[in-house]
């Protein structure tokens, strides 16, 4: 069925179709609507979910951890300060290997307070042991949420599905939706290997460890993330077979004969596509590499896709405030370092706090990549 939905509506609708066992969530702009719409589904009897309207995001994630450890398919949604407040618990969800799925309407972090879209919140959680998917469109957010549930359960890793705050969360788009039954059959019922509620086989979840075991626990968690990429690829293929829409870990757009490329993720990929097309019309050989999966890191895909370029512009919708640009820039730099001959990387930071990012801005970055050099290490696009 074709629907007109905003990002939040589409994500809430996808959650309804998943019909998770437990949702514990707290409102925050721009993801509030997800929680509101889902509450309506609960109170109108359209889902079987037990919904907990907790008193904070810290408690939301704690309750999700409790529910997931008890064998329930568990979901939540948040953004910005909420995600920051959850920070401590994100690591615990990851360390306990709980397949919680969270929709994130990515937003800036205070101070100054700003409710608009950027990747500061999501990328500040990048080392917490969660898989992270960044979506270009509302459709992609909708599709990715289903994939995330399956991938999380297969890898025993929690997953975030990030859509850019406001730019996608509040943007009305055409969405091709699936039938409830088809989604539910595809996902099946979640039956974990262990559950806290198995009273006949008591287990201890979340022990303390000393120097003798902590590292070993962490090493197995790291191995779980190491092995996640093939699972992501497999589930995306299964999804494409079942629902007819395929996504890669990265997407190479008009890269075949390109001389320079730009790498980015999220909604700005749509703007960049336009700019690539425009420059192509002018005979300029530029391409775009869109990143969909930030965790696990797509380092092999990057090496394969980017090795042949002389210059690659990397765009970050956040800054690490380290005098070294954004997270994507530093990570792609380290991925490419292992190549015998590597492209030159140019760092661009754009769109913080929802700052307009126009096709002209995008074209400017592509031109910069073609030129192959710029004076400053990090260019802050569109800052007055």
């Amino acid at each position, binding site marked *: 069925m074709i629907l007109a939905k905003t990002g939040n509506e589409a994500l809430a609708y996808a959650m309804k179709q998943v019909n998770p066992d437990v949702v*514990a969530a707290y409102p925050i702009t721009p993801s509030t609507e997800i929680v509101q719409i889902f509450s309506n589904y609960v109170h109108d009897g359209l889902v079987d979910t037990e919904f907990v309207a907790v008193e904070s995001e810290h*408690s939301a994630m704690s309750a999700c951890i*409790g529910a997931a*450890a008890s064998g329930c398919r568990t979901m939540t949604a948040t953004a910005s300060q909420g995600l920051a407040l959850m920070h401590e618990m994100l690591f615990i969800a990851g360390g306990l290997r709980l397949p919680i799925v969270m929709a994130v309407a990515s937003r800036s972090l205070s101070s100054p307070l700003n409710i608009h879209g950027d990747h500061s919140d999501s990328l500040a959680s990048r080392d917490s042991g969660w898989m992270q998917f960044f979506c270009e469109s509302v459709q992609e957010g909708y599709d990715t949420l289903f994939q995330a549930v399956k991938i999380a359960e297969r890898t025993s890793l929690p997953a975030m599905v990030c859509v850019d705050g406001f730019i996608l969360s509040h943007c009305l788009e055409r969405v091709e939706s699936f039938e409830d039954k088809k989604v539910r059959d595809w996902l099946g019922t979640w039956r974990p290997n262990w559950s806290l509620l*198995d*009273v006949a086989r*008591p287990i201890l979840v*979340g022990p*303390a460890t000393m120097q003798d075991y902590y590292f070993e626990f962490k090493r197995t968690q790291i191995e779980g993330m190491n092995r996640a990429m093939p699972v992501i690829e497999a589930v995306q293929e299964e999804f494409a077979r079942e629902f007819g829409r395929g996504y890669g870990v990265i997407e190479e757009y008009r890269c075949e004969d390109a001389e320079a490329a730009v790498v980015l993720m999220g909604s700005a990929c749509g703007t960049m596509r336009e700019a690539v097309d425009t420059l192509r019309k002018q005979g300029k050989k530029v391409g775009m590499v869109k990143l969909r999966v930030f965790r696990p890191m797509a380092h092999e895909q990057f090496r394969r896709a980017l090795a042949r370029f002389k210059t690659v512009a990397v765009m970050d919708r956040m800054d690490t405030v380290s005098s070294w640009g954004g997270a994507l820039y530093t990570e792609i730099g380290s991925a490419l370092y292992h190549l015998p001959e590597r492209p030159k990387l140019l760092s661009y930071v754009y769109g913080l706090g929802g700052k307009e990012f126009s096709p002209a801005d995008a074209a400017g970055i592509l031109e910069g990549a073609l030129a192959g050099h710029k004076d400053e290490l990090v260019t802050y696009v569109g800052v007055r």
Partner: protein
Amino acid sequence: MARLKDLCKNPELFSSGHRACAGCGEALAVRQVLLAAQQPVVGIMPTGCTEIFSSIYPHSAWQIPMIHTAFETAASTAAGVETAYRFLRKAGRMKEDVKFIAFGGDGGTYDIGFQALSGAVERRHKFLYVCTDNEGYMNTGIQRSSATPYGAHTTTSPAGKVVPGKRQHRKDIMEIMIAHEVAYAAQTTIAFWSDLVTKVGKALAADGPSFLNVLVPCPLGWGHAGDETVKLSRLAADTCFWPIYEWDSGRYVINHQPREKLPVEEFMKPQGRFRHLFTQEGGAEVVAELQRHVDAKWALLQKRRECFGAD
């Protein structure tokens, strides 16, 4: 009333061999609470002494399913576990009748975990929250909490040359929980094992969240010999420093009326954390202020019992 004759037949759900200090009141409380649990229970605990002395991998003292997440999250994690239980029962994926018990230290309860506790209780998750109150953050080396009594020395309210220990009175968590209209709230201490076990039974039978505040002497933190734990627990009640009472269906019941109300000094003197008050100048005023506070709280409780009492 619980009887030893019966209790000793119950399985020990908290194994010996854990790493608590000799004379640890907290370990006794956990053991007594679980002796009262006659049906399947699932435990939730925050970071703190109990977690550390019971659960260092690859060992566990718990014979019940137990989850630990973080320091301020006993109640919020319990909320998730209890919600999962309700879902699985509703979905027909679980048959057993299970009860939930969260064990939190006073730090994890009165302070950092207070918001989560307030929220979970307001949402009426059905679980028993047991605060094992040793009046300080013992796991991190004896820091003050909002449960630390007036005048007590801790490492962050030290008995200094100018300031003689903690400068504030303790928080009245019982009244705060009663104001949440919990299904049942009670206060007790480990010397009153029969009272404790009876209260756990009532709390688990209550239709909604329940709260049990258990005073647990801490030899290391309070500075007393390990074999004085039970004696101090009893003195706390007999000085009315720690009234033994309950709030059941809107009624206050005082479960232990000391035959003779002893001066609070009797409770304080054996403890290192109050020693400065008996050796340093100005200590007597601090003791007098603590006595005044104990008397006032005790009088208030009597009033409450008169107004909202059982008889």
